[in-house]
């Protein structure tokens, strides 16, 4: 699958992020392996260090297998001072995992993200691209049970 995606893009450093996004979104567990990083760097003529730098910078990308739903909680200061701690604690208890982990049933992955641009609605989190703001433990419980119910 990676080879087909690579072929669509010009062999230039500028294609890197688009390739990573398209490929990762098509993979069931939405992560990128070392072998794939090597393959992409080889195709684009950039070093693996360069690809690693980009993959590790953007929280969109992961080098660890992820669950069906990716919950990303904002790591930045406004969310911190507005009670992210309790929100995170609630999430960890509900899902029975720690930040950075995936549930045993592979339904949820809990990870940090950099600022979501919703500081006015801090604390904020994002699930599969959808943003949730003004969070508190009760609101988080409702959101998670909704995701559980849907599945």
């Amino acid at each position, binding site marked *: 699958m990676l080879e087909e995606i690579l072929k669509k893009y010009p062999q230039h450093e500028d294609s890197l992020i688009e390739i990573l996004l398209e490929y990762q979104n098509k993979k069931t567990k939405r992560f990128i392996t070392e072998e794939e990083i090597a393959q992409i760097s080889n195709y684009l003529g950039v*070093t693996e*260090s360069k690809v690693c730098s980009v993959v590790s910078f953007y929280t969109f990308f992961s080098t660890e297998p992820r669950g069906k739903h990716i919950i990303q909680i904002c790591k930045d200061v406004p969310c911190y001072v507005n009670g992210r701690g309790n929100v995170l604690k609630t999430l960890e208890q509900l899902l029975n995992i720690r930040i950075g982990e995936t549930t045993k049933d592979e339904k949820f992955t809990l990870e940090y993200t950099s600022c979501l641009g919703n500081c006015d609605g801090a604390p904020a989190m994002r699930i599969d691209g959808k943003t949730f703001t003004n969070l508190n433990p009760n609101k988080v419980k409702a959101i998670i049970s909704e995701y559980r119910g849907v599945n």
Partner: protein
Amino acid sequence: MVNIKINNTDVTVEEGTTILDAAKTKNIKIPTLCYYPDLDIKSDCRICTVEIAGEKGLVTACSTPVREGMEIKTNSPRVLNARKTITELMLANHDANCTACEKNMNCELQTLANTLGIDENRFESVLEMQELDTANTSITRNPNRCIKCGRCVDVCKNVQGINVLESMNRSHEMVISPKYGKYLSDEDCTFCGQCSSVCPVASITEKDETDIVWNALDDDKKHVIVQVAPAVRVSLGEEMGQKPGSIVTEKMVAALKQLGFDRVFDTDFTADLTIIEEGNELIERIKTGGKLPMMTSCCPGWISLVEQKYPDLIDNISSCKSPQQMFGALAKTYYAKKQNIDPKDLFVVSIMPCTAKKYEAAREEMSVDGKNQDVDAVLTTRELGKMVRQMGINFDQLDKVEFDDPFGITSGAGAIFGATGGVMEAALRTVSEVVNEKPLEKLDFETVRGLEGIKEAEVDLGGQKVKVAVAHSLSKAKTLADQVKDGTSPYAFIEVMTCPGGCIGGGGQPYNTTNAVREERIRATYQVDSDMKIRKSHENPVINKLYDDYLKKPLSDLSHDLLHTHYRKRNA
């Protein structure tokens, strides 16, 4: 032109000038850390922060161009406070054990903390000690001292085109490292050491071998000899507080004698020998339809690049060992025999402008007995400076002393090996006289000199017009290597040096090497050449005697055994 005020002084500069450069025109010093002359503007560190009247936030002077009517304050309490905070934050994540650091008293962060008057840090240390990378023979990486300025990443990626070092992760978790935190020796690192040259702290340094050398010098059973590379005599002065471009050859020899070396020899001698061997190799390749273009082999960083990235070009590389290794091989055979010394008791040190030379000396091919290194220890110019200071030598007061015989009689051609284009020029002086069988009218090949990235020349060899080219820095080398790989290279002979400016800009040279400093060292290098009595390698009488007495003729069987080598494709 744009009119601005800096600290109430009127300044007029060209449009597009940065605040930092505008301030320099009036001798107003704005401190910098990630900024480095000739490299990209990064504005990572924020130390050059200044205040502009009417603007809410502080801006970085290195990256902000001036605008008409701008009123800038470079030292307001607000600016000073911001700089202090930034520095304190850096120090809170820095192994600031200054007295146990190679760069104590020579560290840009330390100087900054000192000038800002930081006497205590308001922030608690958040440093988590990481493992050091000491896995290779050339360069040590200490992540605990890294301040993440990004200079090393810039030089590795943009100047050298290698891009082994990168910034990983983001925000306060950002680190500078090869991929997956690997060792440099696991990567396609050429050990050029340009990263160590621009590091403002001691996060990347050469692997220190001064202790090994002190111990050898102290060992009565050892006969310790030293060779000094051409580029060191025009840069060591800077380590001793002299201005760039100072020529300190005789004082350097005197200092080495005081350090206790039994004989002080000149790598210029084996540079001359390289020219005879390599020149004859080129003539033979041209005559017999051998692989062309022939590419020079004296630079170990370049050899690493070819072995790692251009294995198809291995046969294009001259089989000649570098001058350092020719010296080592001759020392352990010819010299040892002549002096009646058991090679086991002979300790060969070289002083090089280079960190990759440490790697080269440790290569398994570089051993005439198959067990011990021909060159036992390699010190950079900086390490020699350190030893001279450790010894308490008053460098300026030293008497002038000449190199020892026999490897001290050299030509100007050997001397210019230190500058980009020098090997080419030295080779052309010999090859054209040998082929054309008449003396050159003009010895100076100016078109191959200077800091332009790729230089070309055309020479007449026995009625045949031959094109040659010179590249310095690995990104430029890659341009020429790609042409050879594609079969589009119009050249017969190519000189490649890994470092910008050639060895005078080597990774082991004194800190603060900029293009302006490189220009001065290059000027000094050609001064050394033009002051020499002999300026062509084939007119060096000791070289000719060496062939008569020992090697017999260029490219002889013995020459091949001692002075030539081979290369191999390798990963990392």
